[in-house]
């Protein structure tokens, strides 16, 4: 097969069958280029959280499609997304992941820019021609035109004429709301703690894995087994949290049967009933939880508190790049680099107004789940890389996603299935085809 050719719209449609996907969706650099143009270049993409650019001049560096961008806070409090490129001769401007500065300076010929991208000063102004206009946007750091925030979450799109953000997010705003509602002060803050891991595999593999509740029993059996054999409450530094987390990947029949998978429009999916049937249930004797619940009741009343805490949704995948877990204040962001290289940025939130110990648990959760030395995520990454190695060969072109095909149900909000179904991946690929074949606006 010639991998150099750009697939046509019809070919892309043929990559996705009801129960199968063609390997080129993962292994073809040309398909990746189209994904950058049509998915990451046209949809609303989550970039950063407002708490990362709290004060005027604060900036955070990340990626939007194939571009490096800076999310900035201007002196008037407005948030901007700027291409990290000097308009003079094109130099990459900012070389750090985050910081604060009232002016962004290009080190090459010392043009300097305000946090909204406008040009502040150029040295030796007198030698520029009459026609050189400091106010002309051509001389400014290029702005991403459409930036929108939903309850602290900053999204941007390169689409000139985007559909409304809320339309794209659909029902998934519920989980962003729920995360904020879990804070006694109604707001969350992204903590300084974060890990960035690179794996040698396609970006979609991470989202599929996050929607795949069938794998933990097999992939995580080494840490489940080790945790099961370890004595309870032996550690003095984490109230047994690490051991319990490791053990929780080994599902019993009861938990297995309780979990429900949900698939929505635009590729969003989540799992529910994850904790209620015994996977990491909150214990009533836990003094930290007790204090925290009291704070919530004081802030919102009893009814609302029960409603907030009973939202039992795990691995909420906001397609195409976010995985949110509100119960434990965790987030993972998928950042595609090439068809076979992806960054995963893992972070956790502080619930404003909650006890410090709640936050310490979120930090601990982050390390245990997804540090580079994690006893959990390292085995996931290993599998993602093995899948990519397999898919890079073309002796058998089809990937199977048929599990559950005949028994999935649909209700008025979307697809519903039991834990064993590969419905979430089918939902992701349905959205993928729609986005990849849609006419440009």
């Amino acid at each position, binding site marked *: 097969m010639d991998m150099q050719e750009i697939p046509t719209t019809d070919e892309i449609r043929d990559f996705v069958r009801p129960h199968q996907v063609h390997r080129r969706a993962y292994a073809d650099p040309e398909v990746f280029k189209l994904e950058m143009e049509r998915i990451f270049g046209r949809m609303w993409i989550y970039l950063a959280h407002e708490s990362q650019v709290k004060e005027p001049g604060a900036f955070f560096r990340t990626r939007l499609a194939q571009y490096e961008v800076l999310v900035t806070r201007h002196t008037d409090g407005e948030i901007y997304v700027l291409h990290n490129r000097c308009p003079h001769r094109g130099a990459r401007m900012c070389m750090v992941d985050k910081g604060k500065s009232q002016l962004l300076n290009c080190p090459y010929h010392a043009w300097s820019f305000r946090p909204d991208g406008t040009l502040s000063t150029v040295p030796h102004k007198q030698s520029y021609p009459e026609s050189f206009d400091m106010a002309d946007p051509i001389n400014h750091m290029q702005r991403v035109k459409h930036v929108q925030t939903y309850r602290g979450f900053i999204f941007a799109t390169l689409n000139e004429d985007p559909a409304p953000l809320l339309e794209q997010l659909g029902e998934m705003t519920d989980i962003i709301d729920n995360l904020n509602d879990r804070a006694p002060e109604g707001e969350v803050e992204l903590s300084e703690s974060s890990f960035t891991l690179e794996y040698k595999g396609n970006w979609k593999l991470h989202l599929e894995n996050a929607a795949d509740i069938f794998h933990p029993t097999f992939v995580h059996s*080494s*840490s489940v087994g080790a945790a099961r054999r370890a004595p309870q409450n032996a550690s003095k530094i984490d109230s047994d949290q690490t051991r319990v987390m490791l053990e929780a990947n080994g599902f019993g029949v009861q938990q297995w049967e309780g979990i429900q998978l949900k698939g929505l429009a635009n590729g969003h999916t989540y799992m529910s009933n994850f904790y209620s049937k015994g996977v990491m249930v909150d214990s009533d004797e836990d003094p930290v939880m007790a204090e925290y619940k009291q704070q919530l009741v004081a802030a919102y009343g009893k009814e609302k508190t029960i409603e907030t805490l009973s939202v039992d949704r795990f691995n909420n995948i906001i397609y195409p790049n976010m995985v949110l877990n509100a119960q434990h204040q965790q987030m993972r962001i998928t950042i595609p680099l090439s068809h076979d290289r992806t960054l995963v940025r893992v972070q956790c939130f502080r619930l404003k107004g909650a006890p410090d110990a709640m936050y310490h648990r979120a*930090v601990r959760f982050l390390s245990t789940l997804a540090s580079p030395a994690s006893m959990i995520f390292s085995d996931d990454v290993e599998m993602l890389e093995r899948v990519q190695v397999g898919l890079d060969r073309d002796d058998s072109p089809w990937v199977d996603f048929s599990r559950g095909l005949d028994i999935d149900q649909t209700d008025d909000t979307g697809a519903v299935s039991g834990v064993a179904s590969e419905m979430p991946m089918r939902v992701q690929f349905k959205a993928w085809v729609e986005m990849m074949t849609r006419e440009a606006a």
Partner: protein
Amino acid sequence: MLDMTPQSRVEAFLFREARLLDTGDFAAWLELYAPEGVYWMPSQPGQTDPLNVASIIYEDYPILSIRVQRLFEARALVLTPMPSTTHMLSNIEVEEGDDGIVRANCTFLCIQYQSSEQKTFAGRQSFELEPVGDSYRILLKRVDLVNAGGTLPLITIPF
């Protein structure tokens, strides 16, 4: 060993730790730690707080023993095949405190090889050691990677 200086006694102890890791004797490696001993690999350069800032590893003996158990577990995917390693220590400095605790720090280089891929890790280690007989037990081992805070590869065998 009784005629050894504290410097050479600590060196012998650290070299032994490195050898146990290289030879895959993780059970014996774990026993170098005091029951309340902690292994700490911060995620950020100069990190001082293991509670409010996530660490790559912040584990005491009971959690470390789960980690070691997993090293033995045949199904640990990321450890299949088992990486082979060379741990090298250098620039060892030793200081005996008035509190009876011996503090040591050194630089390290660790080469890990697995499935035809070779990775290099480097950084600084610092120790708080409790003298026991003519040897020590580890109260605290801190590992600061040169690339802490950057994009990191998976870390399997400890340094």
